[in-house]
């Protein structure tokens, strides 16, 4: 198995997804199965091959430095689960 319980716990934390302890084994199995399967790529010779991040042949278009947005705080927070005086609220962060 390419991923164990600890790996899954680690990436689940990186991805901030709560995975109940009792599901870790099963998930490790599933993910390992997928990882083992994608490892078939190892047999492809990619020496000197440029990685392709995007198929589009366009380069980054640039926009003018003009203010075209903002000034819509009510819309920005319209769907907020918790809002106060125009701020989004989250459980207190302790540094």
């Amino acid at each position, binding site marked *: 198995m390419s991923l164990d319980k600890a790996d899954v716990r680690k990436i689940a934390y990186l991805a901030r997804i709560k995975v109940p302890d009792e599901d870790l084994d099963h998930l490790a199995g599933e993910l390992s199965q997928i990882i083992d399967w994608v490892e078939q790529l190892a047999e492809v010779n990619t020496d000197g091959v440029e990685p392709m991040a995007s198929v589009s042949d366009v380069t980054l278009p640039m926009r003018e430095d003009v203010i075209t*947005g*903002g000034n819509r*705080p009510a819309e920005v*927070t319209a769907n907020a689960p918790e809002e106060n005086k125009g701020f989004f609220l989250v*459980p207190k962060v302790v540094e």
Partner: protein
Amino acid sequence: MSYILQGETCEWEVVIGLEVHCQVVSNAKLFSGASTDFGGEPNDHVDLLDAGLPGMLPVINEVCVEQAVRTGLGLKAQINNRSVFSRKNYFYADMPFGYQITQFDQPIVGEGTIVLELGEGHYREVGVERLHLETDAGKSMHDQHPTKSFIDLNRAGVALMEIVSKPDLRSPEEVGAYLRKLRSIVRYLGTCDGNMDEGSMRCDVNVSVRPVGSEELRTRCEMKNVNSVRFAMQAVEYEAQRHIEIYDEGGEIKQETRLFDSSNGTTRSMRSKEEAHDYRYFPDPDLPPLVFSDEFVEQIRATLPELPDERRERYVSDYGLSEYDAGILVAEKDNAVYFEEVAKGRDAKLAANWIISTLFGLLKKEGKSISESPISADRLGKLLDLISNDTISGRIAKDVFEMMIETGNDPETIVEEKGLKQITDTGAIEGAVDEIIAANPDKVAEVQGGKEQLIGWFVGQVMKATQGKANPGAVNGMLKKKLLG
């Protein structure tokens, strides 16, 4: 001057690298059309993208790209015509996408240099590793509510240039000089306002120590978001000592991010849990590579202003100023412009002296910048003219300067109204000289008996009698002639 710290076991050298985040001067944010203005109501300068709403996509602001290139040129750095934006993945309440858009292995600007000024004629080149463009986060406020943090995204998405130095700095003084010089350069370029109080320039300080003579790079600690030059210097001092003490006791330094506490000048480990950061950088698929032509770069180069280093050299060669004075005058572009206006058609050294010792002293005392100076360059120039054409003495000029501040009048008016014109009329001076000689026969005898240094006393008496208006040179000459023949 080398900064060597004596430990118990050996002498230590400090190795410092800085990552400085400079907020780019632009109207709109890096990838959205929201304003970059400071202040505003909560979440007012926020566009749909900045709030990370589903389906929103980034489009880059051309001026932010230009500013990065301009800064790169100002740092004499390699400009990369092709660069790539990547996603840096981590969660934070004021970072709406769950990743920061930044540049990772292919930044817009590569290696460059910054020349540090470390006292009279003493310079040192420090390497810049890279400059990249990235987005700022929003702001979390933790003191508004007992159990909640408040999130404002007004700053989220504002363009930052992260300028990373090589680990070339060796002392708190060099750290100070680096930050001041970088600030000077970006302000000359107009690419960042360099305001550390408002956070438009923030510094991450990386510190390690090593035994003198060693070339190794030991484990470093990073103090994030230090927001003044003085604090950065303090952080280095404290952190270097801390490392040395730990090594002296046979301990090891743990690589970590530490918090600098400006209230007592110390650093401490951040209490947040010991988590393995794994940013999982990868090229942002929403943003194709940033590619521009040499022509684009050359157009920016053509608009580059004269930078502080070149300006300083010019002041030394053209105006005959000392390196030190020139360095002081060019550090702030506004100061240099003021100086050049005063010096135009005048004695540049005189102008430099007056600006550095008198005007800057005044501004410092009043906590003002040159743009708020109570004395304009034009008026200071006119005051210097009055000295140069012997209308007033340098001594009187200081008084006139004070009166200019008090009254707001121009120097000519003050000199005229207060009757401060220097007495150059030999007859008038002679009268005063004769009176003093006649009133002090015993002192005259002493001078003539060989105590020539007493002539100074006679000069003082004559100046007093003329309320300082007599030309001191003329008084001196006349006294010598009359007393010594």
